[in-house]
């Protein structure tokens, strides 16, 4: 049915791919062999996706600004008011950065999955890669790696700056263990929390809804606990206070609220467990649900 036209374009096509126009058989076969795809392809794709939207730059930019800004601010205030640290580690002053900055990672995590639903991009993605679990896995890996790296850089920078600024305030020299906890520990914890947001985004499929849930998860235990004045609820209140995300986060800075709550690397295991369970749920639902 196509009448051959002696146009330049067609001649060029024929040179480039001889069987492009020939197609004698009933069915078209692409001249190029089809490769089997694997997780590596999905990772490359997700990396392109995450780095090519402005919201990534914005959220991470604000995150860095908050982490470094607040860390330096508190160090400077302490230094300028001549408050004595009384031998405490200066790293503890960094606790405020991740407290606020985590909101940025929540946003980025949720947007990584939920914005695909908001824009309809998810249909394109899942058409291009019907192995849905692979897409989720790739998103999780790319996001986690990015969030971990950025947080690690920020916490390390803030740590060094704080030690340098507060030298004259009688601050103690942080130990290697302390260093490890406020850099790697915090980064792992915060990145996992972001990953949890990503998975919630995949479950909820609505950006604003998922962000609200995650911020609620972050703040609600504290707020609820504050309203539990009644004596019989004391234990619940205690539990909520100790296991709320901000308290868990302060554990890494050696600023535990009490001795009964999680300590040491405990918060990390708690977060890891929550994330793993949510991942299983998100994976299962993504495979099962209609898009």
């Amino acid at each position, binding site marked *: 049915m196509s009448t051959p036209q002696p146009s330049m374009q067609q001649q060029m096509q024929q040179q480039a791919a001889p069987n492009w126009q020939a197609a004698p058989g009933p069915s078209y076969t692409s001249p190029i062999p089809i490769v089997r795809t694997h997780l590596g392809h999905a990772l490359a794709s997700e990396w392109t996706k995450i780095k090519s939207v402005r919201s990534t730059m914005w959220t991470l930019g604000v995150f860095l600004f908050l982490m470094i*800004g607040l860390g330096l*601010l508190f160090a400077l205030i302490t230094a300028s008011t001549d408050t004595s640290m009384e031998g405490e580690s200066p790293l503890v002053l960094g606790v405020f950065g991740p407290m606020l900055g985590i909101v940025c990672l929540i946003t980025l995590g949720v947007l990584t999955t939920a914005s695909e639903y908001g824009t309809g991009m998810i249909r394109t993605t899942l058409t291009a890669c019907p192995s849905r679990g692979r897409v989720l896995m790739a998103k999780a890996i790319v996001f986690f790696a990015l969030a971990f790296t950025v947080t690690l850089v920020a916490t390390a920078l803030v740590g060094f700056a704080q030690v340098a600024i507060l030298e004259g305030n009688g601050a103690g020299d942080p130990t290697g263990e302390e260093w490890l906890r406020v850099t790697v520990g915090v980064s792992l914890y915060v990145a996992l929390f972001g990953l949890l947001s990503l998975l919630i985004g995949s479950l909820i499929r609505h950006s604003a809804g998922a962000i609200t849930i995650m911020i609620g998860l972050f703040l609600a235990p504290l707020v609820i606990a*504050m309203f539990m004045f009644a004596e019989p609820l004391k234990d619940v209140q205690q539990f909520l206070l100790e296991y709320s995300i901000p308290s868990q986060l302060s554990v890494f800075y050696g600023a535990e609220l009490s001795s009964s709550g999680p300590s040491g690397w405990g918060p990390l295991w708690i977060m890891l467990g929550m994330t793993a369970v949510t991942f299983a749920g998100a994976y299962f639902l993504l495979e099962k649900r209609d898009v």
Partner: protein
Amino acid sequence: MATTQVVRSEWTKIRSVASTVWTLSLAAVVTVALGMLISLLSRNEWDSMSTRDQLFFDPTYTSFAGMSLGQLAMIVFGVLVVSNEYSTGMIRTSLAAVPQRGTFLFGKIAVATGLAFAVGLATSFLAFFVGQTTLGEHSASIGDEGVLRAVIGGGLYMTLIAVFSMAVATMLRGPMLSLGILMPFFFLISGILAAVSATEKIGRFLPDQAGNKIMQVVPPVDDDTPYGPWGGLGIMVLWVVAALLGAYAVIKKRDA
């Protein structure tokens, strides 16, 4: 005649979207709840406070502590009222229906301001009474000198924050950009400027810092602010008027 039509239309618009209910109720709940919380903490910590702190304790202002967070929800309300028109393309439909852009803008802002004032005033009174009840023996009474002014001022403050956000959103159009500028402005920059002694004097003239003054009944220790409560509110009003003029100029001039 045309103005009443615009106002009625804007009232329909504002009441028919869910974000209005969400942001305003969040503003009220957060302000009241946080104020109550801080009041509670103050009462419990009363005995460990220094005498100086006890002497300068301002029960009214303490019950308004929640406004620092509650105003963020007000900002979101103000921004969404305006920028939703732009992000959804509704602005073209609206301006085709009301080509007198000044009437349109001020009709919209008037309706949203009225609503924000009603909610803000109610929130302010509620926060005051809840806070005072929580404070117990250290509380102030509405009849005390300056207290009624502070409570009404709290409502005005929240309203002005919302109007300022509306005006800024009209100039910037996008909700993300507007929030991205307003949130750090009120949440971080103003705080940082006030915290560092070198910039403290500049920080005082920012809208929120100046407007805050109206809610204080007992001035803080060694207070050297060059303006009084109404003076502070006046400074805030100047900011708002400037933003509104900017918004008017922008909507008049730019293509929709």
